[in-house]
């Protein structure tokens, strides 16, 4: 097990696995693949993830002196679950259509491994501001990943972007972009199996890039 020095690499590691934090990021969204079928769904889940991450990290960091190692994970899970419930309720109040579309995926954010590892290990060690910055960085990356995955699936599967915008009011529906009309669409990308295939491609690309970076020259 390689233990990297406590330098910038540790500070900005998204997750405690210093050997491959990005992989953890990619795999952490597996439970959500059923719901990320559109750009808006991806954005919604990404923003929810960011809120949970920042909130739970801030709280975990604030309490870190009172939480010895053995209870740290249990407390982190508790914080994450509480925040996920709170975020879910906020969606239900303010973004009802999106809440209905996301269904079980919002509460399921509790199972996102990336969140659990980040809050339970890295952030409960750091002072408040660092913890929040780290969490926000990870959250930002998750938003990009989920939005990109959602946009890709929506584009390939339905030929549209930003569908579901009527969640923000009837006038907002106009911003939905339809690039193809009628039935033209690669349906496989809309079912969970297609989501896993796309995720697998992303993981493969990530591994290829990593291998190229590690290759000695």
């Amino acid at each position, binding site marked *: 097990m390689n233990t990297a020095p406590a330098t910038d690499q540790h500070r900005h590691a998204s997750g405690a696995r210093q050997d491959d934090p990005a992989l953890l990021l990619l795999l952490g969204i597996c439970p959500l693949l059923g719901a990320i079928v559109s750009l808006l769904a991806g954005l919604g889940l990404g923003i929810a993830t960011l809120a949970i991450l920042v909130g739970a990290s801030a709280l975990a960091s604030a309490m870190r002196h009172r939480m*010895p190692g053995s209870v740290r994970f249990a407390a982190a899970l*508790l914080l994450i679950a*509480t925040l996920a419930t*709170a975020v879910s*309720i906020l969606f239900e109040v303010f973004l009802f259509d999106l809440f209905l579309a996301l269904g079980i995926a919002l509460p399921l954010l509790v199972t996102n491994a990336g969140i659990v590892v980040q809050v339970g290990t890295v952030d409960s060690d750091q002072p408040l501001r660092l913890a929040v910055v780290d969490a926000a960085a990870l959250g930002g990356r998750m938003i990009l990943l989920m939005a990109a995955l959602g946009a890709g699936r929506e584009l390939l599967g339905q030929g549209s972007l930003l569908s579901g915008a009527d969640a923000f009011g009837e006038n907002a529906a106009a911003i939905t972009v339809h690039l193809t009309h009628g039935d033209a669409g690669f349906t496989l990308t809309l079912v969970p199996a297609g989501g896993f295939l796309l995720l697998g491609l992303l993981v493969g690309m990530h591994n290829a890039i990593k291998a190229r970076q590690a290759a000695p020259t």
Partner: protein
Amino acid sequence: MAIEPDQTGSPGAPRRRPALRALGLLALASLAAVAVGLLVEGSRRRIADNESAQVMKTLRSVLPTSGYDNHPDQDRILVVAPDLLGSDEPLPVYRARRGGEPVAAVITVIARQGYVGPIRLLVSLAPDGTVLAVRAIAQQETPGLGDRVDAAKSTWTQIFSGKSLDDPDAKNWAVTRDGGAFDQMTGATVTSRAVVNAVRDAALYFEQHHAEIFQHPPE
């Protein structure tokens, strides 16, 4: 595991006994429960408003735009008809009226034999039994195939508008593959068949309980 505090003088935070740690977690959990409870209570009314706005939105999609002057989402009854409406649970029937006279009834029916799972439908009928509109309000059918029962994805459900139990007659209330008059969705015969059966059953329910549907006081 020793329960005495660490005596070997290790630097850093003092070790607490497991009982204290457990108590700490319990305190945190209680705090979290209170916070969530407050949030749930505080948001209850706004969520209920959202839900009834949603009901009104779907009702508007099956009712003629100006034909009624009451509030169908409030003028409703709950009926239980497992054989025809597909559920043991009470299902809402909404009434639209103008000047007190019945204009339409919107029946909730559940098509149990969907390809993936049950499909919840709203079927609106005129007082003479003519189907006005059909909308799927909850379904989990295959994207691109069965999910075209959703009006946002295709206009297939419009084939029921104007139909009644006389038109087509009983043996033709089926998909064309079964010898009936309704074109099934391409690649989604199972879904189509389930919906055709459910709409027919809703029309049957309406015919059998016509008077009671409009006269029962709202609940």
